[in-house]
């Protein structure tokens, strides 16, 4: 068995009596590129929130031999577990370089914080190359295009030296080319890391997923390779149902426009 892995057992998350996630088990090994899919409200983001300490949960979440429950957000990050958000949250007033530099800070001593940055650290240079923003290093975060923002966030996780990357809808709102580039980026950085992607985009999932977990109504519905999951009748039912309601909603919107 490989050493680095993320293991979730019997995860429960409740908000004021509403059960958002129940009895979720997940085991993800280093090198895996796991997609977490499911209809709206299935609890995908909530699972990520629970792992990163943003919402309280019961059950056990372990990374290697460390238990993550009860730890604070910044302590979990320092163990090597990083995440992105649905809306990219980079520092808009800081340049690309400063954004990456600030993310590299957890490996610095407190005293070095009081000094001025004099040169670009090698791991930051490397991250700039990997995410393809080397030419935009002095551009302010707020001036970046949508896709570039997500890449910058992934770059921040790289300099943070995150071993587990939890990405919440990284390609939402991206063009086809940007999606392709993002997928290739994930494949490049994947082998040394554990990557979990929460995603709605089925084409993106089919192109890049190594394994898939389907959540529905807060529980795991199915798990396996893309082919295995796609042939699972329960998954088809959930997604056909979802597609049907989606089609109905679109029809209604069209009606409204006609009026």
């Amino acid at each position, binding site marked *: 068995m490989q050493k680095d892995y993320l293991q979730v057992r019997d995860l429960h998350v409740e908000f004021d009596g509403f059960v958002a996630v129940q009895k979720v088990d997940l085991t993800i090994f280093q090198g895996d590129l796991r997609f977490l899919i499911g209809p709206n409200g299935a609890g995908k983001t909530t699972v990520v929130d629970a792992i990163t300490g943003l919402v309280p949960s019961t059950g056990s979440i372990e990374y290697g031999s460390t238990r993550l429950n009860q730890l604070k957000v910044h302590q979990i990050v320092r163990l090597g577990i990083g995440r992105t958000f649905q809306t990219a*949250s980079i520092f808009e007033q800081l340049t690309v370089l400063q954004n990456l530099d*600030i993310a590299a800070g957890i490996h610095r001593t407190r005293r070095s914080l009081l000094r001025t940055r004099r040169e670009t650290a090698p791991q930051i240079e490397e991250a700039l190359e990997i995410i393809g923003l080397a030419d935009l290093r002095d551009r302010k975060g707020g001036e970046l295009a949508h896709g570039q923002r997500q890449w910058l966030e992934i770059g921040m996780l790289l300099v943070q030296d995150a071993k587990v990357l939890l990405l919440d809808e990284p390609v939402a709102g991206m063009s086809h080319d940007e999606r392709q580039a993002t997928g290739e980026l994930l494949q490049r950085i994947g082998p040394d890391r554990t990557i979990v992607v929460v995603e709605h985009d089925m084409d993106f999932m089919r192109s890049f997923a190594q394994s898939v977990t389907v959540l529905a109504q807060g529980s795991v519905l199915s798990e396996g390779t893309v082919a295995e999951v796609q042939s699972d009748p329960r998954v088809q039912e959930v997604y056909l149902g979802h597609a049907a309601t989606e089609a109905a909603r679109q029809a209604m919107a069209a009606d409204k426009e006609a009026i």
Partner: protein
Amino acid sequence: MIALSRNEVARMLMGVILAAVILLVLAPAVLSEFRLSLLAKFICYAMVAVGIGLAWGKGGMLTLGQGVFFGLGAYMMAMHLKLSDAGPGGVPDFLTLYGDGQLPGWWLPFRSGGLTIVLIIVVPTLLAWGLGYAVFSRRVKGAYFAILSQALAAAFAIYLVGQTKIGGTNGLNGFRSFFGYRLADPANKQMLFTIASVLLIVMVVVVWQLYRSRYGELLVAVRDQEERVRFLGYDPAQVKVFAYVVAAVMASVGGAMFVPIVGIVSPSEVGVVPSIGFLIGVAIGGRATLLGPVLGALGVAYAETTLSENFPSFWTYFQGALFIVVIAFLPGGLASLGSLVRRLRRQPQEV
């Protein structure tokens, strides 16, 4: 990158030399003894302002209670001056005049000048650290933090009024000497002015380095997106506490210098009203800039003195009006006027 930072250092050194010439050479030559000691008093306020600029301008913590730290420094210095006036083993005059002549035990550390200076730094550090950590780790921020710090200032002033052993409402006054130098001597008054000026310049340089350091970037990041910073593996509470502690120490040192320069400290100098007063200069000058808080504090203090000399009851209205105008039309303070003018000038060309 390196060339750029060398350039910055050169500019900073030029600024320090300029400030030193103005404060240490020009001001004593031009100003009368009375005006010079007024300026010395304003400089004490400016020290508090530098700290507020760091904590509020860059850190987003609306410190409405800096009077507490100002007061701590001031009272500690005042107690030392009272004890050294009374001589070795002596008891300060007011304790025998109005009290039982007994010196409480907690006065004793202030017999030593060196220990007093250490305590002027250490006491606000510990208080701001403990208080800041308790408040910020519970994610209290914004208006709640402002109200909390203001309530603390109010409580502190009320507490002091009740403490007859440190002068009650009257506070401490009538100091004759400062570390062995007679305060009535004009040369010594000038020396106090020089010390205060040097301290202010040092504080501005400290803040300058903080602003350009990685810590400065981090502090601004916490101000703008505290939750995001958590996911970079930092504890935002620690980042904020550091700025709060630095601001507290600066306020305390300002208070400590205020005492020999002005000759009195009383509860009315440390309560809610002076705490807000500290803030107004910072807001008007430009809270997020390096020199805005200093110049704002000096300017407001100067305007207050001149206006209340000529129109005694007018100042409060003027202060309120200025505050409203700046907040409504120039949220970045007067320091942002330059960039505003540049923006307006450039606009026609862009169209």
